[in-house]
């Protein structure tokens, strides 16, 4: 039995008020800001209508940020999914020390981004980094690779991002794997299905609903990822070549001091996400998900 009534609403109200004032209001204010020309530090602002958006349509920097952002998010999401699912299948097997391994493997996701970035900047360091040492002594590369220069920065960034975020996929998939009834596998064995067929026809359909949500959430988070991208690229000399959309919004606001334009970039990013998420939802949603 659930009680009908007002007390429930009163209990939720404080949380709701905070969410409205600190999340929904800023989003609305951001939209309003995007219709103005406003310096980031001074209060004066002029209403310019859709001028900021019209400017972006012809802004090569904006289109470049979209291109770079898509390369970054699509590749990191794909790699996270493959690695996360593979690792989850592995850690679902029983072996000695499994719980400790499960705990250790989740760490990259739990540590601050700044730590993930500095430790990989050390691992990938040109002169003293372990990765370059390995590559050179194994003869894979003749000379140390400049991982933060223009040609390799995207690869380094993808590596660090996949390292940092694949445990999320692992965690969600592993939890789901544990709830698949073993009878399904027994039945498949009786029918003569080998390991590959058991994965394709038993495991994968069972994982469909959790993968649906993982892909949705990870896409939203990778497309709007700021800290990993920003911290990885700063100071390597290749900042100019790795401007994803969130970085571009940040630069417009805090380097060019164009708060209105920065807000416009953020709003375009948001609208793209809403359109993509809605399309995805209607294309792939099955019964009883969410």
């Amino acid at each position, binding site marked *: 039995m659930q009680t009908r009534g007002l007390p429930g*609403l009163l209990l939720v109200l404080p949380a709701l008020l905070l969410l409205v004032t600190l999340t929904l209001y800023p989003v609305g204010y951001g939209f309003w800001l995007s219709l103005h020309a406003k310096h980031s530090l001074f209060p004066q602002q002029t209403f310019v209508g859709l001028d900021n958006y019209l400017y972006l349509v012809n802004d090569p920097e904006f289109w470049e940020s979209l291109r770079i952002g898509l390369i970054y998010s699509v590749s990191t999401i794909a790699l996270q999914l493959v690695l996360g699912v593979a690792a989850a299948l592995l850690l679902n097997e029983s072996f000695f020390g499994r719980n400790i391994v499960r*705990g250790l493997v989740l760490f990259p996701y*739990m540590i601050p981004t700044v730590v993930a970035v500095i430790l990989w900047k050390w691992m990938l360091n040109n002169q003293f980094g372990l990765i370059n040492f390995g590559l050179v002594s194994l003869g894979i590369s003749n000379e140390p690779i400049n991982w933060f220069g223009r040609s390799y920065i995207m690869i380094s960034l993808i590596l660090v991002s996949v390292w940092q975020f694949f445990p999320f996929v692992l965690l969600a998939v592993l939890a789901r794997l544990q709830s698949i009834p073993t009878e399904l596998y027994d039945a498949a064995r009786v029918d003569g299905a080998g390991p590959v067929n058991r994965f394709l026809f038993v495991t994968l359909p069972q994982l469909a609903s959790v993968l649906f949500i993982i892909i949705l*959430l990870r896409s939203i988070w990778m497309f709007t990822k700021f800290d990993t991208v920003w911290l990885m690229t700063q100071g390597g000399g290749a900042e100019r070549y790795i401007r994803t959309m969130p970085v571009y919004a940040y630069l417009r606001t805090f380097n060019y001091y164009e708060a209105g334009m920065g807000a416009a970039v953020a709003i375009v990013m948001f609208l793209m996400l809403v359109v993509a998420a809605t399309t995805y939802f209607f294309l792939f949603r099955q019964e009883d998900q969410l």
Partner: protein
Amino acid sequence: MTRRTGWQRLGLGLAVTVLLAFAAFPLLWMGLTALKPPSEIFAWPPRLLPEAPTLSNIGRLFAQTHFVTYFKNSLIVSTAAVVLTLLLAVPGAYGLTRYRFWGRETIAATVLFTYMFAPIMIIIPFYIVMRTLGLANTHIALVLAYCAFSLPFALWMLRTFFQSIPIDLEEAAMTDGASRFRAVIHVVIPMALPGIIATGILTFILAWNDYIFARILISSDNLKTLPVGIADLYNASVIDWGMIMASGLLVIIPVVIVFSYVQKFLVAGWGSGGVKG
């Protein structure tokens, strides 16, 4: 369970080793570097274990930088964010599960929708709002930001948790003459405690790890939290790798401690949508 052949066991062991090396070795390498004297840090070829382990990197971190201040700031801000989030989310989630009222499902759906609002979208207007309120460059602004960001998942997680507690127990306590409030305090909260603690821990980790809000909202050095402090330390001048690795090691220690508590809940399956990011 079928028994594995020797080859299968070897393959499994190898795969687990590769996975561990990828996920955990960089962290181990950071810890080892933090304990090496400079001569060994830059040794070529590099050696795995420190020959003469030293705490001098940590000593320099404490003596020459404001690391201790950043640490204290992070602790204050993260703890305050946890307290505020739980004070709002526990009653809120209880209200969402135990009462039926107009708009309840809408509220639950809206909470999920806020996942679309990335920090970078909110931070620009949020910063301007905080400046107008005179709260820019204060810890209060940070606590409010983290609370706003944790609330959606806190409400969502606690809701699933309250749903799993049979309502009969409260009703039994209430027929025995307890008020609803007392029934909640003495029956529901103790049963939900593991969930409340886990939610608190995830909020703590979110606040402890945040870079972007602290970067933009805080300008005074003595108010900075650890992620911003460390990033600035790294960008300062010639990089003191031993000291930087030591700072990384010390920052993740609280995360390791609290995370070992939630890990079993996470792997058990609920709230895997937990931490944002």
